[in-house]
């Protein structure tokens, strides 16, 4: 590692990974607060700044732009150097991207609680911050692709295709969705209205999931899973199918968020069909990653970091099966706008993205600081089971709550009158919202164990090393 720090730019990678860790804990902690507010409304404290409506975008932005984008920027800038056997394209550019992105996150942290929002889901930040995001994103693209361009090996490694698609598509959809006319500083109106705006919004919304939370994480895993398993990727051909399947079909699927809405029926149907097709490349990719891990059965038996990756893949399978299912009209009629959708998002976000991220933190952070093992395997085990308990409780609670309320909203008596009032459906799900809060809290508690374990790993072993000298 000592030698490689001179060969590669590693310091900026460390900064990105620490930022990702901080935002993971902060963003998910805010999520637990929100879950508590939905059970104890008094926790809104009659405060303008932390009431649910303003806090929720801070949770989603914190997790997506804080945790996920930071970890993807950090790992992509590391992987692109290692797999291209070259230093970063430009050292100062890397720091501009890092500090630029952290500035954006701090601005989000300030402006969202103050009520500056476009209302567009996962794109709430107002226009001056959007412009800043575009600038930093372009710099990041130049840095990443510039580094690929100066690689000293012939082949572009699989992970970099996925990171490349993540960077390109996010730029494309972010700009189109955020086209807005500023009324004045920090207030703008979308240039699209009503049904047209909704189509653009969900084209963005679903692709943010597709390219940030899926393609980006897949890119990261295509490097770290083989590294950790000490085996090559199971099938190169499958990774090509996985890649073009995702890029080709994902951008079409967003309108499944608008089934039964007032957008044209053909637009809805394209979204439904393409979502069903997406199932295939998703499971092909999951199979590829799972087989890579399974090639080293001996390590899989004892290594809980391997188990975190394996769990992430299984949750990816669940989410990419549940997604197409929810796009089917009958299921959509029942599930649309209910807690089931929140549960679906979180089995992917906590199960797939979260556990992939956790595995990378555990594997990567000790190595970035020149250590080989973890401070405590016992804490790692505790974290593993806490995380699983958390996601399972979360998903089960919201399956019950969501399917229950969806059924109650639609149920009619024989004479055609509605069987339940809205309040009755709300009261039915209340205890399940508590279970969800508890599940989320377990998950965050696990994260805190990880932070403590990694802190000890990095600091204690350093002391031992110094004593040895």
């Amino acid at each position: 590692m000592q030698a490689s720090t001179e060969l590669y730019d590693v310091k900026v990678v460390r900064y990105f990974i620490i930022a990702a860790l901080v935002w993971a804990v902060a963003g998910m902690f805010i999520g637990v607060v929100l879950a508590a507010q939905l059970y104890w409304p008094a926790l809104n404290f009659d405060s303008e700044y932390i009431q649910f409506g303003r806090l929720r975008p801070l949770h989603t932005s914190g997790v997506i732009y804080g945790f996920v984008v930071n970890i993807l920027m950090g790992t992509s800038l590391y992987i692109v150097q290692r797999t291209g056997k070259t230093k970063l394209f430009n050292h100062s550019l890397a720091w501009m991207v890092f500090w630029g992105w952290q500035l954006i996150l701090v601005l989000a942290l300030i402006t969202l609680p103050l009520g500056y929002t476009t209302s567009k889901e996962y794109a709430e930040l107002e226009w001056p911050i959007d412009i800043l995001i575009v600038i930093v994103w372009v710099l990041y693209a130049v840095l990443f692709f510039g580094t690929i361009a100066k690689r000293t090996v012939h082949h572009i490694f699989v992970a970099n295709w996925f990171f490349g698609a993540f960077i390109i598509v996010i730029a494309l959809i972010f700009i189109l969705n955020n086209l807005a006319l500023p009324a004045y500083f920090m207030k703008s109106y979308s240039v699209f209205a009503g049904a047209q705006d909704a189509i653009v919004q969900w084209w963005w919304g679903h692709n943010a999931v597709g390219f940030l939370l899926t393609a980006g994480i897949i890119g990261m895993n295509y490097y770290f899973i083989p590294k950790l398993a000490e085996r090559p990727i199971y099938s190169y051909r499958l990774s090509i199918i996985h890649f073009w399947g995702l890029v080709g079909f994902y951008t079409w699927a967003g309108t499944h968020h608008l089934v039964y809405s007032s957008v044209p029926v053909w637009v809805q149907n394209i979204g439904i069909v393409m979502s069903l097709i997406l199932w295939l490349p998703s499971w092909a990719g999951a199979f590829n990653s799972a087989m890579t891990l399974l090639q080293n059965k001996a390590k899989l038996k004892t290594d809980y970091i391997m188990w975190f990756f394996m769990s992430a893949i299984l949750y990816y399978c669940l989410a990419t099966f549940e997604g197409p299912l929810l796009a089917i009209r009958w299921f959509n009629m029942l599930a649309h706008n209910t807690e089931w959708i929140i549960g679906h998002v979180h089995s992917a976000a906590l199960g797939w993205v979260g556990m992939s991220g956790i595995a990378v933190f555990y594997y990567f952070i000790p190595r970035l600081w020149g250590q080989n093992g973890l401070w405590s395997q016992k804490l790692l085990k505790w974290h593993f089971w806490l995380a699983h308990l958390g996601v399972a409780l979360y998903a089960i609670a919201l399956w019950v709550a969501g399917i229950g309320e969806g059924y109650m909203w639609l149920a009619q008596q024989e004479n055609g009158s509605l069987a339940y009032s809205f309040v009755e459906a709300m009261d039915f799900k209340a205890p399940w919202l508590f279970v969800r809060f508890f599940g989320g809290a377990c998950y965050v508690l696990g994260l805190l164990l990880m932070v403590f374990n990694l802190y000890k790993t990095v600091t204690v072993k350093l002391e031992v090393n110094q004593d040895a000298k």
Partner: protein
Amino acid sequence: MLSKDFTQSLVILIVATVLVASFSIVVLIVPNLVRTDEIRLRSMAIPLTAVQVAGRDVYISEGCHVCHTQMVRNIDPEVKRDGRANKEADDIYEYPNLWGSKRTGPDLTNLGRKYSDQWQRIHLMNPRQVVPTSLMPAYPWLFEQVLSGDDIEDKMRALQTLGVPYTDSEIDKARLAVKGMTKGEALVQYLQSLGQDTAGDQER
């Protein structure tokens, strides 16, 4: 260069990804964006008044759309519960759309005049006074904070540019109409307007 593929050439990787990913823009997005005039012809929508615009921006700023939808799907029990189903042409002045994605509270598409102004005020001040098991936060500050009206002309001019048919005299009068109102009063006026323009349309 043409003898290479995307695994060897950065240019091919970038160009191919852009092309493949943007195919959906051409098929799905653009055909809908160019239909504005056609959609407007069928619309019964009436632009919001200055006060209602101010109220709508309070709705956005407080994040009401996070928990309330404004999209009644054309499904029998849903129409029974929430009133007339949305049509494509209803929301032509909705910059941006406020359809939402989660129904933690009820749908608000046709909320207007369902409850009195007084009920809306009490409910916003403390929802649990009228709905004991409500999960909604209380919004007491809305009735303390007063709107200056200084920004309303800029807002309406932006909306006018985008295509809401405000006359210049409407915009000139906007500031005085809004000035001195609390945020809560403006919000209640917006809520009472919801669904009023399409209330006469019974066709499904």
